């Protein structure tokens, strides 16, 4: 009984919200733009899945629009992570470099990446690289800033300890700086998951010939609202999965951090 009720504790409100949505759209406000949940779910199945085992039960639409988007997110995010972590730590431990780049980073984070879409098109053309570039640029800032703060926030005693042990630079980076800054870095990477999703959609609204953003625009132009919402639902599911994967990774990789802070979860 307990085992059944415990998950219910977590999900009942979500179920209520969806039921209210269904009822409202079926009765009181038959909005042209917001279809009932049941219709979205039906379209969701029809749009993204197919009865063909050879394509892993994924529809043609899924393969042409969703897979490219996921690929772009993965590539952009990976580039941002590597550049952000290395750059941030470097700027964090080398004070003059940090000061040198500080105004540029502040400005960079504040410029809406969307504004650079035209520049990206000119530089990269209508290619995957263009989307990847925009995603990477948008995700870079939170990771960079957090890695910077993380590296600067490493306890002075730890730094001294490492120095007194005469660790090599490489070992110092790998065994002290990187793990020491990792809670902050992971926090930044987590924020960037959301940013990556935002920019995936935005960068595909124009100048793309595939992808979820492209699909959304197309459905909007054709006034296909159930399809539009089923794409939004898919994006939400991808976001939830990405967040869950992240939380799991964080729980295992940063166990020392949470435990050291005396957190229960």
């Amino acid at each position: 009984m307990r085992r059944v009720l415990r998950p219910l504790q977590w999900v009942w409100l979500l179920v209520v919200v969806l039921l209210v949505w269904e009822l409202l759209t079926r009765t009181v406000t038959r909005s042209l733009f917001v279809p009932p949940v049941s219709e979205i779910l039906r379209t969701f199945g029809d749009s993204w899945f197919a009865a063909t085992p050879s394509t892993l039960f994924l529809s043609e639409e899924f393969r042409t629009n969703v897979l490219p988007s996921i690929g772009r997110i993965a590539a952009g995010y990976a580039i941002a992570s590597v550049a952000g972590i290395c750059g941030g730590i470097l700027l964090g431990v080398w004070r003059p470099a940090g000061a040198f780049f500080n105004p540029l980073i502040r400005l960079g984070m504040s410029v809406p990446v969307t504004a650079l879409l035209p520049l990206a098109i000119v530089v990269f053309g209508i290619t995957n690289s263009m989307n990847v570039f925009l995603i990477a640029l948008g995700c870079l800032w939170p990771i960079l800033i957090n890695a910077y703060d993380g590296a600067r926030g490493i306890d002075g005693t730890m730094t001294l300890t490492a120095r007194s042990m005469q660790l090599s630079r490489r070992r110092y980076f790998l065994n002290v700086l990187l793990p020491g800054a990792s809670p902050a870095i992971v926090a930044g990477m987590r924020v960037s998951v959301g940013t990556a999703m935002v920019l995936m959609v935005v960068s595909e609204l124009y100048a793309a010939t595939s992808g979820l953003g492209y699909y959304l625009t197309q459905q909007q132009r054709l006034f296909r609202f159930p399809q539009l919402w089923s794409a939004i639902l898919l994006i939400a599911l991808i976001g939830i999965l990405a967040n869950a994967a992240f939380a799991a990774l964080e729980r295992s990789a940063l166990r020392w951090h949470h435990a050291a802070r005396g957190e229960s979860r």
Partner: protein
Amino acid sequence: MTATIGGEKSMTSAVLEVAGLGKSYRSRAGDVPAVRSITFDVRPGEFVSVVGPSGCGKTTLMMCIAGLLPLTTGAVTFRGTPLDRPRDGVAVVFQDYSRSLFPWLTVAKNVALPLKDRKVPREQVRSRVAHALEMVGLGHAADLHPWQLSGGMQQRVAIARGLVVEPEVLIMDEPFASVDAQTRTSLEDLLLRIWAETGTTVLFVTHDIDEAVYLSDRVVVLSQGPSVVVADIAIGLERPRDQVATKQTALFGELRGEVYGLVMASEKRTSLAGHTDQG
């Protein structure tokens, strides 16, 4: 009981010689002297404690001696060569175990870290780490993480990390200040046992006058900062020492009173007067 005021220099067989050590910190307002001029030396195998009023420069002194801070004046020599950067024969144990152990590494890996860049064969690393952990009574905790241990155990890991390099000099800056009174008692006795076993020279900073007297061969008393040596007191208590018996002796009480008097006298303001730091 022998007290040589001013810490006069003695034998040349010293493992560590601190001669006229002075250190100023640079700040916006100008140079701030933390240590004026400190001279003393430590003979091989000796257990020397340094006490002094808060903020008098004890930590600064230890950092200079460990080669972690450049000196402003004077010199520190370790077996005759100047100590201007961290050296192999010198290990440091810091006060705050929670900040000097790396929480992302297991106990064994924390202890193994100082051996890592020294081309010690892997097999030997393993045995030395095991031995160091055995010495501090933590053989069973090798695969745990620091945050799975109590404070006293963590500090023992830090001591094991100091010992694993088999240092000639072990510098300890208030190592037991963050553990509770009962644990401290155990750690003191543990330290004395290891010191006797290994013959390591120990240079020990503490706030606790009982602790300094209980542990040491000599207690160096510093003045209010910028500090100089006020007294260098030989502690003639018998060894091995015992938490109850030793502390019940008249000599212990006298030495304790003497050091207490010196520290209090050198402290211009009592700590209750208090200064604040705004912003």
